[in-house]
Each structure stands twice: as structure tokens, then as C-alpha cells.
């Protein structure tokens, strides 16, 4: 009985996407018309399936910096923190959605942290105060981070109407509505 119900539910969920096209939604992020990198853009999509082969998120420590500066992941993702510098690093986040302190670890070591709560985590190194990064944890599979040329692409979005959000370091969250179709290009512009 339970198995039958599960099959019916799965078919219903799969069927809800039938007839809807899956496409890549591209766009640009700007502040008063000027390009902005490291902006996170995401679409609300409750019930959307997780990607079958999600990318393993990595926040590298190299050249006394975190790379990337902004990392967006889906809730439940485990982020790897390799130390690729010849100095020690001590990665921590103490005030935000996911709090942790990885302690000191040397070159070549990789530590991991699961991010199970949605929200923003600010990441620091206790030894190198100028090192800082952000991990934005999102409860949706539809998200992207703008590159150095301000472009972003959200992969595999089903055509529909979505509420979207955008955040950038030091800026407020923008919220609006968007009809995603084959010709849709999203321009996020902070005033």
C-alpha cells in the first residue's frame, strides 16, 4: 500500500513537469547599471527535484584567499574546504546559519562541512583576518552566481512563473516575479 502510494506520488510529481520545457536561464547582475560579480540569483521552486548529479561544492584556500569569494549551494550539500596554501588555515563561521570551526590544518588537508540550514554563512580564517568568503545556502536547485563579467546561468529551469531573489555581498536582497520562457533573460539591477 505504502509502495503503491509512493509510486503514485512519484508519477504525480514527474507528471507536473510534463509538457514544460527545461531550459537554461541566463542573465546579468548590475548595480546601478554597472556589472557586479559574485551576485547570487535564485528562483523559488518548492518541490523541484534535486539535480541527479550535483556538482561537489568546494571552497578552496589558496594564495591566502578563499576561492570562490561567494559560493551558492543547495540545502544539504557538503562543502569541501581544502588547504592549498603552505601556511595553516583555520576556517570558521560563528554567527550565521551554519556555525563551525574547523581548527588548524596544514597544506593538502581537506575538511568538510554539511550545510543543512538555508541562509547566509560568512566564512573567515582566524589566522588571516583578510580572508573572507560567503556561502549562501538555498532551498532550491535553481540558482547561480554571477561571474566577473556579471553573467550568470541557472541550468535546467522548467518553464513557469517564479518568484526570484538576488543577493550580493554588502547589498540587500532583491525580490521579484519572473515568467521563464525560451526567450527570457533576467537582468538583476540593484538601485
Amino acid at each position, binding site marked *: 500500500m505504502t509502495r503503491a502510494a509512493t509510486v503514485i506520488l512519484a508519477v504525480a510529481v514527474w507528471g507536473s513537469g510534463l509538457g514544460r520545457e527545461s531550459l537554461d536561464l541566463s542573465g546579468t547582475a548590475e548595480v546601478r547599471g554597472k556589472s557586479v560579480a559574485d551576485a547570487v540569483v535564485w528562483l523559488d521552486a518548492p518541490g523541484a527535484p534535486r539535480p541527479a548529479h550535483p556538482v561537489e561544492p568546494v571552497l578552496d584556500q589558496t*594564495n*591566502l*584567499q578563499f576561492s570562490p569569494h561567494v559560493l551558492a549551494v543547495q540545502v544539504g550539500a557538503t562543502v569541501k574546504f581544502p588547504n*592549498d596554501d*603552505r*601556511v*595553516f588555515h*583555520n576556517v*570558521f563561521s*560563528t*554567527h550565521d546559519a551554519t*556555525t563551525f*570551526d574547523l*581548527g*588548524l*590544518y*596544514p*597544506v*593538502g*588537508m581537506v575538511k568538510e562541512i554539511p550545510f543543512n540550514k538555508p541562509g547566509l554563512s560568512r566564512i573567515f580564517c*582566524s*589566522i*588571516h*583576518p*583578510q580572508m*573572507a568568503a560567503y556561502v549562501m545556502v538555498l532551498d532550491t536547485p535553481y540558482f547561480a552566481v554571477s561571474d566577473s563579467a556579471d553573467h550568470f546561468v541557472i541550468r535546467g529551469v522548467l518553464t513557469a512563473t517564479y518568484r526570484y531573489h538576488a543577493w550580493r555581498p554588502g547589498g540587500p536582497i532583491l525580490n521579484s516575479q519572473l515568467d521563464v520562457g525560451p526567450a527570457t533573460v533576467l537582468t538583476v539591477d540593484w538601485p
Partner: protein
Amino acid sequence: MIRRLVATVWIAAVALPVAARAQSITTEAAVSAGRSTDGTDAAAAQIRVFGPLMDSWRLYFEAAWGNVSTQGSDAFGSAYPYDGRVRPMEAFTERLFQPGKSILGLRIGRYRTPFGISGRSDYAYGGFTRAPLIRYDPTYGLSNLYFEGGVDVIAGRPALSVEGSVGTAADAGPDCRRPGADLVIRTQGYYHSLIVGVSYLNTPPTLPGTIVQGRTALGGIDARWMLDGIELRGEWVDGEPFDGVVTRGGYLDLMVHRPHFGPVTPVARVEYLDYSAGPFSAYPRRVTAGVAVRVNTALAVQLDGLHQGQPLINGRRTGLDIGLTYTVRH
């Protein structure tokens, strides 16, 4: 003093970012000012340029200037010289290979002597305004201003690695070692929250050959342990700075980095040094307690109170140091 400070800041703020416009090259500038009850006022500036070069090679370059109103105190001498000169500090290129789970690193140029706990970030603006006694030039032990000009190789795995450096002394402090071949070997092990290293240094001494004979030969053990934001670290060094003289000592640091302390990191140090050199012997002991406060991402304050068995330069046994550092990264 002010003119040089302005010149260094100008280089940091204007000239280097232009030169370092290559993608991913980072420029960092720091300006500091401090005052100690030793009767010492200090000012300093550093510029650092670092980042990836071609073919996975990395660049690190640092230049520093510092000056103090009174020589003879070790206040603010934790990692940089304070002699009023603009001078290069570390200047090297390095490459790191990570075949499988192994590491192999090569470094060429001028770098801090890789003996024990030796990194710039271990001592500079980490909450302590003074170098450990065992790492302060005039005590004839080690020095945080010892630099090597040569080649450094690290090999092994993250859990156990060996580092070797061959070159010549290229020191930045007032007490520079004599020219000559120089060897440093360090082994490091890592297990859970504990990092332990064993080091050996064989190098020409600082004093001239007309005064002392032999070479400096030092052995040391260092350890760091960290759990839930509480870090303990320390070093023990033992050896001969030259024939017939023994330097032996160490220190233990405590640094507490807890979320509910916010931007405040309390620090404490106990240290011990025996310099056994006949009539010139000295046996200082010192305790230090202080805080490092990160006001914002750029501004940091360090406040240290210390007490030692032998008088400081003004005849008092206690001292209070305060330092402010403003750092920008581009």
C-alpha cells in the same frame, strides 16, 4: 620618519595595485602605530603582493618599513625590523604539486627561516606585540627576522611531511648572521587537532669570527593544538649559538577564539630563556596577557600587559603595549 611612512603607504595604495593588475594578483597594505610604557613609540607599514603566476607558480613579495622612538626595547618587534629602512622581506616564487594524497612543494627566493613556528601570520598582529624571547635577536637564540635566500622543498603527506631548506642567511634584523651555507630541516606531523614539528638549524652565527668560534646549531620542537576555538601552541629550542654557549628556552601561547567573545581574542604567553654565556648570561622569564580586537575588517587593536623577572629597558619589570593596525586588500 613620517616622510618614509607616507612614501610606503603611497607605494602600497597607488603604485603596487597598478603593477599588480594581472588577474588574481592581490595587493595588501598594512599601516600600524603603537605605544609602549617602555617609552617606545612605533610606526610601521608593509605591502604584500601575492597570487598566481604562470604554470601554477605563485608569487609572494613583501616590503616593510618600521621605526621606533627608542632602540633597545623589543616592543612591537614580533615580526618586522624597526630600523627606519624600507626593505624587502619575503620575496619568493613557489609551486605546489599534489599527486594523489601526497604533497610536494618547491619554494625559491627569500623566505622566513622555516624552523618551528615561523610564519609571518603566526607572529604579526596575532595578539602579541613582541616576539618570544627565544625568537628575539639579541638573545642569541633564533630570530623572527631570520630569512633564508635559497631553495626550500616540502614533501610527504598532510599527516607527515619533511621540509628542507638550503641557502644562505639573508636576515632583515639588526643582528644578521654571517655569510655562509645554511641548512634547515623540519618534520611535521598532523593528527586530529594536534600538529607537532621537530626542527634543526645549522647556520653561521651572528657575531663576527673575531669574537666567537663555531656555528649556530639549534634543535627545536613545536606543537599546536586547537579545539573549539581554543588554541595552545608553543616551542622549545635548545642549542649552541656558537661554541661554548648554550641557549635554551621556549614559550607557550594560549589564544581563545570563541563566538561569544565576538571580535575579541584573549591571548596569554608564558616564556622562559636560559642564555648561559659566563659573565654575559641572562635568564629572563616573562608572562604576557592581552587581547586582539578586530574592530572591523580593516582595523585591529592589540593590547598586551607583561611582567618579567628582569627589568625592561626603563628599569621597570612590567609593561603595557598598545598597537593599532589598519589593513586594506585590493
